[in-house]
């Protein structure tokens, strides 16, 4: 009897242990210390991004002196008169900076940002931000001397957010049209700066101000202002003479405003406005009896952040690209019996083909030129060329020794003028098979030189984050 006792005890201990273990296994919660990541853990307050006090657009004005126009120099809007970033003026420009370096005619201190100038008949128009006075200021300078003639503005409180200002005005003989960092649209008399009308897109259309403030440059189509607010309307047209709304495109899909600008396009004689919104890309009628009607749209390529504008190619093709890993798409718009169709020909990530994070590529002689973004693999930051019907096959790159940043590039007199982030300007002769550096030099010792370049009449206007310079680039 006693001999069997240890076995029984052992068995009992084993069974009890098994029960305890089973209980532990059943009740143990291995993830009890885990934190669930759900929306709202960043303490973002509801309504934190709501508009503040009403802005009295155009309320400030300073007049310094009157000056006549000097016809012959025009860079009227973002990407120039033809929206292609190519200067077609027959002015011979330098190929080398010369022994004494660039001829800087004048230099202006600006509020921090990337806003760039437009030029009309010898006058430079720039929507600057006055950091001391806390106001958007449309400033008018003489192109030849940099002398300030007048400034028109309005109080609006901004905080530094990768710069403050970042748009290019649109200008014609009568008007200057601007969009400020917080979506205030202002139209003034080009000659004397008289205020004509203003529009607060956040208040009127419920526009959501894009990250890092507004990047959309306004479009002047003769006497009509074309603005893409997002919110209640996808696109609006306003008569610049009266400030009254001409037409409005509804926005049932609630697409949002991007940093991209509206680009005009003509297909089979039909004029349309192409807009790349947060949500999709669309073509909106700009002529005939159906002005403001959506002719075609697609959401097949819909990045969450968009800075470059659509590049209008030949035969209804459009190239669209965006940064932050989104990549690019090549689109084909076709027209048949008054109906329009959109097809995505190519869609890819930045490692697979032409892409851009910030600047809009240049379409020149059936080829597209651009600078690859940082996430483009081995071609990162290189200047590249692609054929317009195949944006995945690179034809040429500038090589590992010629890398660039997020700065702008422009074509004039058959040459590319390419600005690096830190104010170094390269003059290059570029063909689909070769990238030849003609010369390069540091123009200004600054940073974030991302504002678009303007070239007209042999003058080159460029900026870094805090100053703008005018350089004489005429070949003498």
């Amino acid at each position, binding site marked *: 009897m006693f001999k069997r006792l240890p076995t029984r005890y052992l068995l009992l201990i084993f069974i009890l242990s098994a029960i305890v273990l089973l209980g532990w296994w059943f009740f143990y919660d291995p993830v009890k210390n885990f934190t669930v990541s*759900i929306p709202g853990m960043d*303490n973002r307050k509801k309504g934190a991004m709501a508009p503040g006090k009403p802005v009295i657009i155009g309320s400030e004005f300073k007049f310094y002196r009157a000056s006549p126009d000097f016809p012959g120099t025009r860079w009227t809007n973002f990407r120039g008169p033809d929206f292609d970033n190519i200067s077609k003026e027959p002015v011979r420009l330098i190929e080398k900076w010369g022994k004494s370096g660039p001829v800087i005619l004048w230099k202006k201190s600006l509020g921090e940002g990337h806003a760039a100038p437009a030029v009309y008949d010898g006058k430079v128009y720039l929507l600057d931000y006055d950091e001391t006075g806390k106001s958007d200021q449309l400033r008018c300078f003489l192109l030849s001397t940099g002398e300030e003639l007048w400034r028109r503005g309005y109080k609006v409180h901004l*905080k530094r*957010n990768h710069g403050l200002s970042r748009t290019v005005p649109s200008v014609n003989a009568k008007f200057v049209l601007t969009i400020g960092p917080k979506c205030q649209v202002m139209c003034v008399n080009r000659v004397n700066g008289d205020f004509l009308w203003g529009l607060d897109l956040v208040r009127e259309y419920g526009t959501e101000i894009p990250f890092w403030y507004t990047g959309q440059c306004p479009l002047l189509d003769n006497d009509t202002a074309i603005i893409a607010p997002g919110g209640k309307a996808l696109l609006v047209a306003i008569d610049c003479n009266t400030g009254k709304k001409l037409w409005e495109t509804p926005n049932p899909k609630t697409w949002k405003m991007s940093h991209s600008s509206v680009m005009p396009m003509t297909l089979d004689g039909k004029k349309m406005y192409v807009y790349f919104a947060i949500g999709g890309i669309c073509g909106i009628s700009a002529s005939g009896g159906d002005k403001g009607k959506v002719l075609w749209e697609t959401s097949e390529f819909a*990045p969450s952040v968009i800075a470059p504008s659509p590049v209008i190619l030949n035969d209804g093709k459009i190239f669209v690209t965006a940064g*932050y890993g989104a990549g690019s798409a090549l689109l084909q718009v076709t027209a048949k019996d008054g109906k329009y169709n959109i097809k995505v020909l190519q869609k890819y990530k930045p490692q697979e083909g032409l892409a851009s994070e910030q600047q809009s590529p240049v379409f020149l002689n059936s080829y597209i030129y651009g600078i690859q973004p*940082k996430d483009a693999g081995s071609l990162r930051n290189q200047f590249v060329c692609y054929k317009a019907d195949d944006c995945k096959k690179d034809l040429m790159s500038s090589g590992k020794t010629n890398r660039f940043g997020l700065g702008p590039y422009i074509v004039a007199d058959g040459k590319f003028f390419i600005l690096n982030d830190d104010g170094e300007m390269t003059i290059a002769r570029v063909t689909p098979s070769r990238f030849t550096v003609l010369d390069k030099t540091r123009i200004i010792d600054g*940073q974030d030189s991302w504002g678009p370049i303007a070239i007209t009449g042999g003058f080159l206007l460029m900026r870094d984050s805090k100053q703008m310079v005018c350089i004489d680039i005429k070949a003498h």
Partner: protein
Amino acid sequence: MEEPENSSKINRRKFLSTGVRASVLIGIGGVAALVAKKAITGQTVWQLDPAKCIQCGRCATNCVLTPSAVKCVHVYAMCGYCDLCGGYFKPETKTLTTAAENQLCPTNAIKRKFIEDPFFEYTIDEPLCIGCGKCVKGCGSFGNGSLQLQVRHNICVNCNQCSIARNCPADAFSRVPLSQPYLLKQIAEEKKSPQSP
């Protein structure tokens, strides 16, 4: 008759006495030299150069410690405090919320906090960080590059042969003086004054 004293002759006592003194002096001199050398050259520790780092992910897997002694460090002076942070959010995230599916960090080691319109602050929860470098890659590609990988010396056991350094494809690891143990990229204005995380 006394023998004349020969001062030039060294007796045993004098020889031993001089020898002991010389030995003590040599010993003291040697110790002083060693101390001086140490003071001049100092100890060294392993560190990785963020300018060379390619964020390959090997820091997370090759360290002898688990989790790795390499951590993400935030250089606040370089940060833009953006709502859309390339180091926090996965590319193409549609809604900028703290939902797990939006986050790039596999271990939720980056905390995001609303400061004021439109700024957000990002802090690293180091015990959760595994040093994979995904956030560093995102920040470098789309932002200012304020997130950087560094060997944390309160964790690193300072192996003679660093296991990560042996496997680093970018040759980013080197020994640095203990007096300057961190190699952080900084904005131009900050370069003059070295910064510790």
